[in-house]
C-alpha cells in the first residue's frame, strides 16, 4: 500500500526520484508484482522455497505475463523435486517471451528485443552494487530498461556510462535511442550525429537517425540515412526488407521479403509485408499465404484479402501501433482504386503512429511521393 501511495504521489507530482547507481526500479510487470518477485528470489536463496513460491504465485496472479516470475517458480519447483511441474513453468515462460511481436530487424539490437526484462534489471542492479565503474552492467541494465519501455531509466544508465567512459560511442548511440524513445528527437539527433561522424558506417545509428529525422519531418534526410544503411547491410534479408519498406521502395523490398517468407515461417508479418509490396506494385498475390489463426497478423492478412472488414479489424486494434498497422494496410488496399482514400489512411498512420514504426515511415514516404 505504501509503495502504491508513494508511487502515485511521485506520479502526481510528475517527478521521479533521482536513481542511485545501484538502486532498482520496478518496470513493465508492475511495481507490486516485481517487488514480490524480488523478495521471493531473495527468500529462495536463503532456503525458504515455500514462501518464495507463494510470493511468486501472488506476483504471477497480478501480472500473468510475468515470465521471469514464472521461470523462478519453475526453478523453485525443480529444486523441490517436482520436475514435471517445473518443466511446464519453464515452457510457459518461454512461450510468453515469444508471444509479442519482436522489434524491427533493421533497428538497434536492443530495440529488437521485446517484453519486460525484470530479472535482468534485478541482476545487473546487483552487479552494480559491487562494480560501479564499468560500462557493461550500466549498459546492460539500460538496455533492459529500454526494452522494458522505460527509456528515462535507460537514459540515466547510458548517461552514467558516458560519465565513466566519455568516448563510448556505443553508449552515445544508445542515449540517442533512449531520447528518441522519449520523443526527444532533437537531442537524439545531436547524439546520433556525433556517433555517425565518428562511425559513418554504423547501420544501426543510421537507422536511428533516420527515424529521428522522419519524426521531425525531415523526409529527405531520413531517406538519405536509410539508403546508406541499406547499402551497408550487404543484402541481409530481414533488415534490408525493413529498410526498403521504410523507404516505401516496394521493388527493393520484394526479393528480401520473398527470402524471409521462405526462411522464417514463424513470423506472419513477412507474408503480410510481401503481399503489401505486391499489391503496391500491382502484381498478383500468391494463393497460399493466409494464416488461419486468431493472431493480430491474421486479421491484417484477412483485411488485405478482403475477408475481414475495416470495422472488424479496427475494432481488434487495441493499441496505437496496431491501429497504425491496420490503417497502413487499408491505404495499400485502397491505392489501386482510390489514391486520395489511400492518402487519407496514410495520413492517419502519420498522425497516430510512432515514428519508429515501419508503417509510419512508409506512409510518410507514400504521402511525400504522391504530393510531388
Amino acid at each position, binding site marked *: 500500500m505504501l509503495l502504491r501511495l508513494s508511487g502515485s504521489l511521485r506520479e502526481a507530482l510528475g517527478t521521479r526520484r533521482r536513481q542511485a547507481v545501484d538502486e532498482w526500479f520496478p518496470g513493465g510487470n508492475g511495481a507490486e508484482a516485481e517487488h514480490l518477485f524480488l523478495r521471493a528470489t531473495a527468500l529462495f536463496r536463503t532456503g525458504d522455497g515455500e514462501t518464495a513460491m507463494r510470493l511468486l504465485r501472488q506476483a504471477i496472479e497480478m501480472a500473468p505475463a510475468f515470465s521471469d516470475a514464472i521461470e523462478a517458480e519453475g526453478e523453485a519447483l525443480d529444486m523441490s523435486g517436482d520436475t514435471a511441474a517445473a518443466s511446464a513453468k519453464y515452457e510457459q515462460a518461454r512461450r510468453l517471451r515469444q508471444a509479442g511481436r519482436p522489434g524491427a530487424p533493421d533497428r538497434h539490437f536492443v530495440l529488437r528485443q521485446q517484453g519486460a526484462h525484470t530479472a535482468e534489471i534485478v541482476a545487473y542492479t546487483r552487479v552494480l552494487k559491487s562494480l560501479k565503474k564499468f*560500462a557493461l552492467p550500466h549498459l546492460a541494465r539500460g538496455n533492459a530498461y529500454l526494452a522494458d519501455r522505460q527509456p528515462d531509466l535507460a537514459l540515466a544508465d547510458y548517461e552514467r556510462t558516458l560519465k565513466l*567512459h566519455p568516448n563510448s560511442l556505443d553508449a552515445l548511440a544508445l542515449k540517442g535511442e533512449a531520447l528518441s524513445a522519449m520523443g526527444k528527437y532533437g537531442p537524439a539527433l545531436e547524439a546520433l550525429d556525433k556517433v555517425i561522424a565518428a562511425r559513418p558506417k554504423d547501420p544501426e545509428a543510421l537507422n536511428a537517425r533516420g527515424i529521428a529525422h522522419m519524426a521531425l519531418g525531415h523526409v529527405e534526410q531520413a531517406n538519405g540515412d536509410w539508403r546508406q544503411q541499406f547499402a551497408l547491410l550487404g543484402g541481409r534479408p530481414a533488415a534490408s526488407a525493413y529498410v526498403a519498406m521504410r523507404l516505401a521502395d516496394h521493388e527493393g523490398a520484394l526479393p528480401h521479403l520473398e527470402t524471409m517468407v521462405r526462411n522464417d515461417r514463424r513470423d506472419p508479418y513477412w507474408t503480410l509485408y510481401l503481399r503489401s509490396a505486391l499489391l503496391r506494385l500491382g502484381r498478383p498475390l500468391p494463393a497460399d499465404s493466409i494464416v488461419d489463426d486468431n493472431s493480430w497478423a491474421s486479421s491484417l492478412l484477412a483485411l488485405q484479402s478482403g475477408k475481414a472488414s475495416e470495422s472488424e479489424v479496427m475494432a481488434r486494434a487495441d493499441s496505437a501501433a496496431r491501429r497504425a498497422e491496420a490503417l497502413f494496410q487499408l491505404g495499400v488496399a485502397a491505392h489501386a482504386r482510390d489514391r486520395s482514400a489511400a492518402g487519407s489512411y496514410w495520413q492517419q498512420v502519420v498522425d497516430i503512429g510512432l515514428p519508429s514504426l515501419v508503417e509510419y515511415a512508409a506512409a510518410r514516404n507514400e504521402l511525400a511521393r504522391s504530393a510531388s
Partner: protein
Amino acid sequence: MFSVIIYGRNDTHGYNLHKRAAISFNALAEVMSDPDDEILFVDYNTPDDHPTFPEAIHDTLTEKAKKVLRILRIRPEQHAHLKSKTHLVALEAQSRNVALRRSNPRNRWVLYTNTDMLLVSRTEGESLSDILGSIPDGFYQIPRFELPEMLWEAAFDRRDPAGNLAKLRDWSVRYHLNQVVHNFMPMKYDALGDFQAALREDMFAIHGFDESMLLGWHCDSNLAARLALYRGRVDTLIDKVFGYHCDHTRVAAANNKGRQTRMNDQDQYIWNVSTPYVPEQAENWGWPDVEIEEVRLDRETSYQRFTAGLDAALKPATVPYTSTSLEWFLYDDLTYDIDHTLPFVADQMLTYPRSTSVMIVGTRGEFVERFLTAWRAMGFTGPVLVPNECEGLPSDLEGEERGAFEDLLPRAEMFIFEFGLATQHADEPVRIGRQAGPLDTKRLKVVAKLFRQATSTEAETRPPGRRTPRRFVGVNVIYNRFWPLFTDYVGANINPFCSQVLAGLPRVDPSLRGKVLRFRGRRAL
C-alpha cells in the same frame, strides 16, 4: 539443427586427455538426431608431422562420432603470425571462429563446449537436436556439474556413450553431483564456456569470438557479455539438459599456472564490453580467405590413403621375411631394400597437406618412380620436384617436375634426400659388403652437396611468405656413413635401423662447429 564447436590439439592438455576426449566426442554424438548435426573439431597447431588429435584416438570413437565429426586442421604455418603475441599453443577464439565460418549453414544453432563434457537430457530419450529444435531464439547456458576423476576414469567405457550417460543419471543422485554454481550476470553460471548455445545467425552478426583475446581465459565470459547485450537476456536450459565435466585437476593444464597464470584482461573483455560487435574483425573473423584442411574419420582416412599409396607402389612379399645387418664392416654398404623402406618414407608424408610440394634429391631412379606412384595414390596433389643436378633419375614421370636446384629450392615445402647406390639393381641382395663404384660416388657427392646447401640455406630459401622451417627426410641414413652428415644438419631423433628413415627440421647449432658446417654448406664446399 546444431553444430558443436570444440577445439584442441594433439598434445597432453591436462590429465588423461585421450580418455576424457573420447568419452566426450562419443557422448556428444550420442545426443544428436538431426541429419545436419555435426561436431566441428578445430585441430589447432598440431605439429605437421603428427596426425590431428581425433585421428590419434580414432579407434576409441564410435561409428556415430566418426560420422558426425569434421576436423578442421589449422597448421603451425597458419598460426605462425600469432606466435609472438601469445604464450599459448592453441588459441580459442581463432579456433572457434574458423569452425563457425565453416559450419553447416543449414543449422540454426551453434553449441560451444569442450572435449571433456557430457550432456544428459533430463527427459530420457530426448536428443539435444529435439531440445534445440523446440526452443525459441535466444542465448542459452546451463550450469556445469563436476565429475570426480575417479568416476570417469575408472568406470566409463569410452565406446559406450549410452551406458556412460545412464551411469551419470545414477551417480548424479547417489553422489550428489548436481550443484548449480550461479555467477554474476552476464555469465549466469560458473564455467559457462562448457555450454553456450547461440543462434548461428547471431554469431555471424556479432563477428564471432573476439580474436584479440590471445592470452587465454575469459573468451566464454566475453561471448556471454556480448550475446547478453545483443539478445538482452541470458536464458537457461537447466530444465532440459544437465552438463557434466570430467574433472581433470590431478595435473594442471598448460594454461594453468595457479596465481601466476597469464590471462586476458577481465576488465577489458568482460566488464567494459560495450557492444556485441567486434568491428575490427568484421570482415576477417574466422579467416574466411584461408584454406583450411578438412579431415574426416569416416572416409578417406589416413590409413586408407596410406594403404592406397603402398598398394599402388608395392607388390606383396613372396618370402616370410628378409634380412639385413648392423655389423660394423657393413658401415659403408649403402644398398637398401626399397620395398621395405617405402612404407616408412610414406609414413613421414601422410600428415602433411595434400598440396605439399616435395623435392627429391637422390640416386636411385627406382626409388623416385615408386615414391611418386605412392605419392599420387595417397592423394597428394603437389608436385614432386627433382633437380636437374641429379643425373640418372627418370624425368618423364607424371607429376614430376625437373629444374635447376636453385630454382626448385624456394618451391619445395619438404625435402627427401635419398642416399643409395645408383647402380643397385632391384633384385640385388642387401648389405652384404658391397662398395660404391665411381658412378655411385659421383652421384652421392652431388646429393651430399645439395643436402648441405638445402639445410644451410633453408631459412632464406623458403617459399614466399612461409615462416616455419621445412622438414627434411633422409632415406638410408641410419648406421652408415651418411648418418653423421644427416644428423649434423638435421635435428632428427634416434630411430631404429629397420625403418631406414630419419626426419626432422634443420638444426641451428650455435657452436663453432655448427657455424663452420653451415658456412661450408652455404658455399657448397
